[in-house]
């Protein structure tokens, strides 16, 4: 099947590579593509069309048209004409029922034509409505492309910079790259083909099989390099994407054997394959006619050559047998042939330029669109500029004579001239609308082979010139991209505390808390709660946000930011602090410890560390106080040692004085614990005597081990939730939302209105924190557990919602927090909670359920 060896062929006849096509083994030469190897083996039908399942063969051999889409190694929609052969590859036909030669679905082509015009399913498959899912399944099975395989693959993204990025490795692109390289380093050339692989261009980084898929704002050029997305930022972008040979629209123009000149050049010159026996060549410009000597050289008989510039055709139609071209009828004459090489001229591949902001103008003398007025930083060289030589505008549609077949404007989506005409008749008189209705230019070729033809036909049908019609907006991607490539790899970092592996070793069930991995419990949440109440527990609270605020103005800064008072906070003391917005809404909470006159240690919620730091920095960018704000969240680990035995255990590990007099409730002290310098904060989120130890992360496991050895039982987030609920301690973000004010959350005592200013003061003064709802505690005596988010009803009407609820062994019932109407925010008020279809009776309780006086905290 191959021609005798010829100079310049890209195949290496001494090296065989074999792969599978269906059940056959195909032996190719090195340098073949899967498409050329199948062609060499005698295959002519490469796909079945999108809608009518018509047989389709090679057309462009440049990787642009939809005619050779196959599934290769589970990856659908691979253009096999440009896919290099690889040993052992498994290639399958797609969108067929049966085989490419006998596709049972092709019945739609024979009988469906009149019944399946463009958009038919929206008109005919609308009743009964409930049957749509069935219709949809039928349509999806009948029409379309390949199926996404089950093979999981990995995609990556790389950020790249270049001084000059050249897109397109043709002659003009290579010359531009070399010229840029002569001026300095940082030149990258990307080309979608594989022929530049390994090419040496001095001073130029050449990336083959890498396709620029768009130009975005700021000159961002994403490049599809298979399983790697390169996000290029270049000072200069040079577009050298060349020009694309355009098909002609005539009856039977999709028959197997109708080729573009590019296919002839590649088949003969690269792979030494004869594209037919007897050919007719029709071209609107000289480059299309250049294939005549190439065909003669390959032993193809030239039946007729028609230069449209000299001889405009009146009629043109192709006829075939079983989808293969057998003769061409032109101007009343019939020519037997198995090959028709047609070229409607070369259209500059301007899409990237248009995306970058260039204007596109129609040149009626040559029948092509030409880019004009390039934006700064974008250059164009070569054929894409419109320098493609003299040509003639071909007819929008060549009529056949007598009974003829379909004329395709868009091969990707099987859109015919009749579909476009129908769209115009139905009133789609704007090109953009007609595009969306008919889906012309929306298929895999993205308009490369149908934009000009559809514009021309559209202009003719609406009676306007192509220039007036213009083009549809060029948008990325300008070639199909795998979704996986755009999604890339998941780069969300996982945050683990310094003690993470101890939790895993102890059999903790880990859960996500924002970016953090935290222990839910160590298998026995109720037992862990009991240990904290009765003896001793330890929880890893390293995830708390931790900020150092230092400087002569530190106290003034915090005083102005927080509703609380800090000016009078003595060194070594701690105060609970809540941040509010100017609208009086709660942003975050935590503790503020004064470590020195001008040094404060601020903790935030686990999810709030970054946002609180940004908030601090922002206000200080406005106020300009002499303070430094340092986020030490990752640098420090923190453990909360809690339970009646906490003092005794801590005392055994330190030489410091841990008596209630030396370190009382809400005191902050420096303490060396098991040899580790710690900041000990005596606070009690979980309601028992407790010490929060903050220290350098690397000592995390050491201190954890020592505390556990002293009898502290590790407890997780779930027992902590129960413990804090017993105390009605609020979790900002869980029990509050963006509408919660201090007053409504039961913290009306907190804002100090005698301060001259704080962020959120005006809202309080103007009553903007007025209470529409209040956050209250509740119990459920029946023991039924309402879901978080469950609705609170009063008289059958919505009157609030549950934010937290847990069963408390200690209280002996279900306890929770809920937002309720103010008239229900009284001790003993009865609530009805609607959860999972059941109505649960609950009772409001304003005081903490456990140790309401806080004696245990202070003990």
């Amino acid at each position: 099947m191959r021609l005798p060896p010829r100079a310049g062929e890209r195949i290496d006849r001494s090296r065989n590579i074999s792969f599978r096509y269906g059940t056959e083994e195909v032996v190719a030469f090195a340098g073949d593509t899967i498409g050329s190897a199948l062609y060499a083996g005698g295959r002519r039908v490469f796909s079945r069309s999108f809608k009518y399942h018509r047989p389709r063969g090679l057309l462009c051999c440049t990787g642009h048209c939809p005619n050779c889409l196959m599934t290769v190694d589970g990856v659908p929609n691979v253009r096999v004409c440009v896919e290099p052969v690889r040993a052992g590859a498994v290639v399958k036909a797609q969108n067929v029922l049966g085989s490419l030669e006998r596709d049972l679905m092709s019945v739609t082509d024979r009988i469906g034509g009149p019944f399946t015009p463009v958009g038919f399913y929206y008109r005919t498959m609308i009743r009964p409505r409930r049957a749509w899912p069935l219709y949809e399944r039928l349509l999806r099975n009948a029409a379309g492309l390949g199926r996404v395989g089950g093979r999981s693959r990995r995609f990556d993204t790389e950020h790249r910079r270049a001084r000059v990025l050249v897109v397109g490795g043709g002659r003009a692109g290579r010359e531009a790259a070399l010229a840029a390289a002569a001026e300095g380093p940082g030149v990258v050339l990307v080309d979608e083909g594989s022929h530049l692989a390994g090419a040496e261009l001095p001073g130029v980084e050449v990336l083959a099989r890498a396709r620029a898929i768009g130009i975005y704002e700021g000159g961002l050029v994403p490049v599809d390099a298979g399983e790697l997305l390169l996000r290029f930022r270049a000072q200069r972008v040079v577009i050298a994407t060349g020009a694309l040979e355009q098909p002609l629209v005539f009856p039977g123009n999709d028959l197997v054997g109708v080729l573009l000149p590019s296919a002839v050049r590649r088949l003969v010159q690269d792979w030494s394959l004869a594209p037919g026996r007897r050919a007719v060549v029709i071209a609107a410009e000289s480059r299309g006619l250049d294939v005549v000597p190439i065909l003669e050289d390959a032993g193809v008989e030239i039946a007729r050559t028609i230069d449209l510039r000299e001889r405009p055709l009146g009629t043109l139609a192709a006829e075939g047998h079983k989808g293969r071209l057998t003769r061409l009828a032109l101007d009343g004459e019939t020519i037997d042939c198995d090959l028709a090489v047609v070229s409607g001229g070369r259209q500059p591949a301007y899409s990237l330029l248009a995306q970058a902001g260039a204007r596109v103008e129609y040149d009626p003398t040559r029948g092509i669109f030409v880019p004009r007025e390039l934006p700064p930083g974008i250059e164009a060289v070569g054929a894409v500029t419109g320098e493609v030589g003299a040509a003639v505008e071909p007819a929008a549609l060549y009529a056949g004579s007598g009974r003829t077949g379909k004329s395709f404007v868009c091969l990707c989506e099987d859109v015919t001239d009749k579909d476009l005409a129908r769209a115009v008749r139905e009133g789609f008189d704007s090109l953009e609308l007609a595009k969306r209705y008919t889906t012309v230019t929306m298929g895999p070729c993205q308009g490369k082979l149908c934009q000009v033809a559809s514009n021309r036909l559209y202009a003719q049908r609406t009676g306007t010139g192509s220039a007036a019609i213009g083009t549809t907006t060029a948008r990325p991607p300008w070639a199909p991209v795998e979704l996986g490539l755009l999604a890339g790899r998941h780069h969300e970092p996982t945050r683990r505390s310094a003690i993470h592996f101890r939790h895993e070793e102890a059999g903790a069930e880990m859960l996500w808390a924002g970016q953090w991995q935290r222990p839910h419990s160590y298998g026995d949440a109720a037992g862990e709660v009991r240990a904290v109440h009765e003896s001793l527990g330890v929880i890893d609270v390293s995830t708390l946000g931790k900020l150092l605020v230092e400087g002569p103005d530190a106290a003034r800064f915090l005083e102005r930011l927080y509703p609380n008072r800090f000016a009078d906070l003595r060194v070594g003391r701690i105060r609970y602090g809540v941040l509010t917005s100017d609208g009086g809404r709660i942003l975050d909470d935590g503790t503020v410890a004064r470590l020195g006159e001008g040094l404060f240690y601020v903790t935030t919620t686990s999810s709030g560390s970054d946002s609180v730091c940004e908030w601090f920095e922002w206000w200080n960018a406005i106020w300009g106080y002499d303070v430094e704000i340092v986020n030490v969240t990752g640098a420090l680990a923190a453990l909360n040692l809690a339970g009646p035995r906490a003092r005794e255990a801590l005392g055994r590990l330190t030489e410091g004085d841990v008596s209630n007099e030396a370190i009382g409730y809400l005191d902050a002290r420096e303490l060396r614990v098991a040899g580790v310098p710690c900041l000990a904060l005596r606070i009690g989120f979980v309601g028992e005597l407790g010490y929060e130890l903050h220290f350098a992360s690397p000592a995390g496991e050491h201190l954890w081990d020592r505390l556990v050895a002293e009898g502290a039982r590790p407890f997780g987030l779930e027992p902590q939730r129960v413990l804090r609920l017993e105390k009605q301690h609020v979790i900002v973000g869980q029990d509050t939302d963006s509408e919660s004010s201090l007053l409504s959350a039961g913290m009306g005592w907190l804002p100090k209105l005698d301060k001259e200013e704080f962020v959120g003061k005006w809202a309080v003064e103007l009553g903007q924190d007025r209470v529409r709802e209040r956050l209250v505690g509740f119990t459920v005596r029946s023991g039924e557990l309402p879901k978080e988010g469950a609705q609170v009803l009063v008289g059958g009407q919505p009157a609030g919602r549950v934010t937290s609820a847990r069963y408390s062994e200690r209280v002996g019932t279900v306890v929770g927090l809920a937002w309720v109407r103010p008239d229900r925010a009284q001790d003993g008020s009865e609530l009805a909670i609607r959860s999972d279809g059941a109505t649960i009776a609950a009772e409001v309780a304003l005081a903490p359920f456990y140790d309401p006086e806080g004696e245990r905290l202070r003990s």
Partner: protein
Amino acid sequence: MTFLLPCPHCGPRDVYEFATTGEVLTRPKELPTLRELTDYVYFRRNVAGVQREWWYHRQGCGSWFLAERDTRTNEVLKVELPSPRASDR
């Protein structure tokens, strides 16, 4: 949005490295009326044109700065570090 934003410290960077709180507002100097406070907290001019905005280089130097950006084209005309006065806002 993929435009480049010139950080006063770090130079032009991809916009995804930054956070923004939007247009620069005029915060009342003293206790406002309810209407003034509501305007300040909730209303934005949302101009189609050049706007002064706060930006924060979150994945960079961690600085807040002011930028003049044309919201129609994302062209950044000017960036500057704030020059705060402790007495003022």
